């Protein structure tokens, strides 16, 4: 190994260690690592735009603007109340409906915002039913990670994979959608089996819950009716353009930016206020990571690892298995964003000897569903557990691990099975 390779690897390992420890903000860690790589001239300045992956960063920025503007209208709280009313105070219906709604919203918006908006309602309704909120909160976490896997824009790893491999929204939906659907059913069934003893309320109690729920007026959640309508129209339009972006030959980032501009223009909301709410820290985190991984690519380290892996992996079938399971277990421990950022150049480098098309799906599967394995596996997990702790609901690491690992193994297993059938067997 050359001194430059050792330095790039040291920066990479040190940054990862800082991100995992969470001692300092992950963005600061990534920015510091990225700056070191630039200072040492491992990534030359002229190659920075190449490594920064503007497709991913601008797509995320566009979606953040849409979500933050829409949030002002009260649309998400409206959906939460509607769902609670539809569940009619029945714990099993609450489990099922909130899982489906969470998965659906997570498929199109970011998982953290989805769970931030739905968790208070879930805690409220479980208190109303006087049952433990644990199964509802856990299924919400699992559903958000499963739903996020279904589309190109559902989870940051998918955005990164889509941008790197040039995969379209429809391709993601066709390949990952059926897996997400099957996994969602599987997950709800497992959570139901694990907690079926607690998912009961007496008919009298149900009547009282229904009375309270009926007193909730979903319209009172709407803060701005005009913005509420404009947000729905814009989101529908953006989703439509995502479906046809490959046929129109426009990048997904352009669709998101168009949607963001349209909503800002139409709603006349103060752009400064909205842009303040954009998660710049996340965008800079991505930027820093791309540069750190770029350093490993520049030094040839990634190429060497890819060659080493391909000496053991002989065909796509084996590669799908290795990538999916390795990604799942790795993402259960470390943040799936830096993990995916590292795996992308690795899979690209494997392209010389293998067809990488099924490997991207295996990476998406493992990176998105691996988050279900442990309490710290994904941002959505931390957010729900954090909110629960503030409401005096304790979800221990072991509570989560026992069911999370089972869900992760079952859902990744089912997904690998489908990928195997589709790309290896046939």
């Amino acid at each position, binding site marked *: 190994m050359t001194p430059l390779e050792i330095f790039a690897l040291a920066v990479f390992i040190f940054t990862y260690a800082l991100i995992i420890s969470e001692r300092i903000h992950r963005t600061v860690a990534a920015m510091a690592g990225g700056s070191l790589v630039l200072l040492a001239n491992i990534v030359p300045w002229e190659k920075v735009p190449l490594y920064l992956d503007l497709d991913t960063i601008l797509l995320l920025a566009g979606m953040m603007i849409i979500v933050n503007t829409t949030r002002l209208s009260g649309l998400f709280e409206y959906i939460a109340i509607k769902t609670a009313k539809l569940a009619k105070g029945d714990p099993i219906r609450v489990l099922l409906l909130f899982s489906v709604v969470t998965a659906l919203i997570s498929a199109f918006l970011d998982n953290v*915002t989805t769970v931030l908006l739905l968790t208070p309602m879930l805690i409220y309704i479980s208190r109303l039913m006087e049952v433990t909120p644990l199964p509802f909160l856990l299924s919400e976490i699992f559903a958000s990670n499963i739903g996020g896997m279904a589309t190109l824009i559902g989870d940051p790893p998918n955005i990164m994979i889509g941008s790197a491999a040039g995969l379209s929204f429809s391709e993601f939906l066709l390949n990952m959608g059926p897996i997400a659907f099957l996994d969602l059913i599987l997950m709800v069934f497992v959570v139901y089996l694990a907690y079926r003893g607690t998912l009961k309320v007496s008919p009298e109690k149900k009547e009282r819950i229904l009375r309270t729920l009926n007193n*909730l007026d979903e319209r009172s959640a709407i803060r701005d009716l005009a913005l509420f309508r404009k947000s729905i129209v814009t989101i529908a339009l953006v989703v439509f353009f995502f479906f046809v972006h490959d046929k129109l030959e426009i990048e997904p980032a352009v669709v998101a930016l168009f949607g963001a501009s349209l909503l800002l223009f139409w709603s006349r909301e103060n752009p400064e206020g909205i842009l303040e709410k954009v998660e710049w820290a996340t965008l800079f985190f991505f930027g820093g990571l791309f540069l750190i991984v770029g350093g490993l690519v520049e030094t040839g380290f990634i190429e060497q690892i890819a060659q080493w892996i391909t000496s053991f992996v002989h065909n796509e079938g084996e590669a799908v298995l290795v990538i999916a399971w390795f990604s799942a277990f790795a993402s259960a421990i470390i943040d799936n964003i830096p993990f995916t950022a590292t795996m992308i150049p690795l899979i690209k480098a494997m392209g010389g000897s293998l067809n990488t098309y099924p490997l991207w799906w295996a990476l998406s599967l493992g990176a998105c569903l691996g988050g279900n394995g442990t*309490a*710290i596996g994904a941002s959505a997990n931390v*957010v729900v557990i954090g909110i629960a702790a503030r409401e005096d609901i304790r979800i221990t690491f072991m509570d989560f691990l026992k069911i999370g690992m089972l869900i992760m193994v079952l859902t990744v297993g089912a997904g690998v099975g489908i990928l195997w059938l589709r790309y290896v067997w046939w």
Partner: protein
Amino acid sequence: MGLYSSFIGRKFKHIAGKKYEDIIKHYREFLLTEEERQIPEINSILMPLDRYVKNVPTEVYETISAYEANILLVYILDSQIFELVRQTLSPEASEEFKRREEMIGEELLNTVAKKLESYGLKVQRRMFFGNKSDDVIRMAENYDMLAISKNYGSEITKTSPISPLVLKIIQHLEIPVIVY
């Protein structure tokens, strides 16, 4: 705090930050609190009246009638005022003032009691000399609800839309209060 809890706390702060506070603030605007969800059992209602309570709105009768509770109408004459009149004017003037006040009180008690009885409620009446705020606070301890006019104890103005006596009373009570 354990290692896991502090790790989750730190990570939560990094990810969710102020966003969660904004969301929970919005939810609080339309979700009922646990206290608000409890439907109190109301079997007895205390309804203080005085010379400043000119009339009781129909909505109050209708609301109170929904509880099917026993009602005590109490008309309190301020003993300090009569003492002041006696000292500054004469004992005869004080007696005359007292007689007139009692007449107003009787009339108001009769009118309100009749109206409440027309809704099928059981009503008791009392009139006595005392302290308009302290006596209500003391008596309310034995009742499930208080129904009080915002005029009770003093005239109200545009700048002071609720009597200071009413404010004092409701600050000292833990039972539900209807202020009309």
